[in-house]
């Protein structure tokens, strides 16, 4: 190899070295930048965990103060709820009864209607009907709850009063019915998604046996989608239990231990609204009751979600 060529190669490698080291350093800064961005993005994702922790912290810390003054036993068994009176009683059952009755009415509307609509849309409806119905349901779920509240108080209640003489102006029935209408889109759309996810081959298997549409829908598709349908019901229950404004407007806000939907009653949520509307000093026992009530609400939704999770897993089919 001639020397000139060797020096040329040496020169080349020197150039290459500098290029490489330059690239390396650029790679280093680029790497740092990438790591930094990843960290920012990670923080955003992790932030959601802090929201949950924040919720738990606020509810628990205020409730702890509350339960120092009110025993858990009284809280669970007392049949009166008069936290703002001189003779204060803190029986959560009173609020719970309102929540359960109104949710029961709502679910009695939303579960059957939502399920039937889901089966209809997924298995029966022609394409054109589905094209119209799905956006309509979505719009229905976009109506603000305060508007539903107005509708319950000033449209549905007078209507019901014509049917049920003596029905008070505030009642759980009207609020529950409207809540049911409000929840239909959630139940219907989640159930429908679950049914559409059932593979076509399973339907074909049923049709190939000479089954009708109705038989295929009820005997094959619905059982196959059961886990998703359960999830839809649980979502509906959470919505009903957590709904606030319809009840605050149309069900009255006086505490009333009742299982009768035609009576007015406060719920856990409408009690919180009532207290917040007033002017309670920060740190007073009245202020703390709403956190105890909120904690009860959270525990209930949590319980339903866990139940839903268990049921969903139980019904989950791998197809």
């Amino acid at each position, binding site marked *: 190899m001639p020397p000139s060529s060797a020096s040329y190669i040496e020169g080349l490698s020197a150039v290459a070295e500098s290029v490489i080291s330059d690239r390396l350093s650029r790679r280093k800064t680029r790497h740092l*930048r990438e790591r930094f961005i990843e960290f920012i993005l990670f923080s955003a994702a992790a932030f959601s965990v802090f929201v949950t922790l924040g919720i738990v912290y606020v509810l628990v810390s205020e409730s702890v103060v509350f339960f120092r003054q009110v025993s858990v036993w009284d809280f669970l068994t007392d049949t009166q709820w008069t936290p703002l009176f001189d003779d204060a009683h803190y029986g959560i059952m009173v609020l719970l009864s309102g929540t359960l009755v109104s949710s029961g009415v709502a679910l009695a509307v939303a579960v059957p209607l939502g399920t039937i609509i889901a089966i209809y849309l997924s298995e029966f409806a022609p394409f054109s009907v589905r094209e119209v119905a799905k956006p309509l349901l979505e719009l229905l779920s*976009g109506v603000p709850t*305060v*508007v539903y509240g107005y509708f319950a108080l000033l449209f549905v209640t007078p209507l019901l009063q014509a049917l049920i003489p003596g029905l008070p102006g505030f009642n759980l029935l009207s609020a529950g019915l409207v809540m049911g209408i409000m929840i239909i889109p959630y139940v219907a759309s989640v159930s429908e998604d679950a049914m559409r996810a059932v593979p076509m081959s399973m339907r074909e298997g049923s049709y190939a046996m000479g089954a009708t549409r109705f038989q295929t829908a009820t005997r094959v598709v619905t059982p196959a989608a059961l886990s998703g349908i359960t999830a839809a019901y649980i979502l509906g229950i959470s919505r009903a239990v957590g709904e606030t404004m319809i009840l605050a407007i149309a069900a009255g806000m006086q505490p009333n231990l009742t299982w009768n939907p035609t009576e007015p009653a406060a719920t856990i949520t409408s009690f*919180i*609204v009532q207290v917040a509307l007033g002017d309670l000093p920060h740190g007073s026992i009245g202020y703390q009751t709403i956190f105890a009530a909120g904690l009860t609400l959270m525990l209930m939704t949590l319980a339903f979600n866990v139940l839903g999770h268990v049921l969903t897993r139980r019904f989950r089919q791998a197809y």
Partner: protein
Amino acid sequence: MDQAALGEIRDLINRHKRWDLIFAAVGLLCLGIAALTFTALVIDMALDGAPRLSADFFTNFPSRRPAQAGILSAWVGSTLVMLVTAAAAIPVGVSAAVYLEEYAPKNLLTAIIEINITNLAGVPSIVYGLLALGLFVYAFGFGQSILSAGLTLGLLILPVVIVATREAIRSIPSAIREAAYAVGATKWGTTWDHVLPYSLPGIMTGVIIGMARAIGETAPIITIGALSFIAFLPPAPIQGEFPFLSFEWLMAPFTVMPIQMFNWTSRPEAAFHQNAAAAGLVLLLMTLSMNALAIYIRYQLRKRIKW
């Protein structure tokens, strides 16, 4: 198969098929009930409220005299609260979604974050109000301000934004990412130049639906103690003199549309109910048109893009 047996089968099929018809009718009926309720709600609101909808209604403050009451402070308040909500929820929500879709390793922490977001979506809105009351209003000292309300609603719609963004990002085929990597793009370069722009319409639909939900939310804002009678406007964000921008409005007391409507609904006088209906109509138009816009964007998206 002989004719007798065939006849028997045909009878059986006809009996069974009757159920198809019955169910189809019941299904349509149920849809009809939902559609009818929706129509009744809109018409009821329009009949009660339309007479009150005049220019004055938008430029007047609330008043003790129903005929002179308006929603000026309410719609200004709603607008400002929405600004804060958007500024809080969009960057955090989109970043979180990008992390979970593009970066997150499959490990316990990621699983916890994912489960947590699903659960947050199921937390009743009033609980967010309690969180805000304890944290923003008292612990952080933001008071009963636009800032507190906007952040509260921002947290509330965070799961909506995250879920919609993740779906949008997931629908982009990995071939697009590979094409970018193949020419030497970094992960963030690929995300910023390709993944985010292409998923923008999907992200937009999520953000719009989230905002539509936030604008109609009442319970959490009542819980932080927003006042319902506000006869003044917060300080303007743009000032006439240096430094022209002011953030005093963030700390100002406020009211929003749904609270104004709630306030009028809970009064006994029928004249105030008309005001409530008018405010409800405005609110309904706002949320419905936002939802319709989101549905439209998604529809266009489905029609246009075929990966």
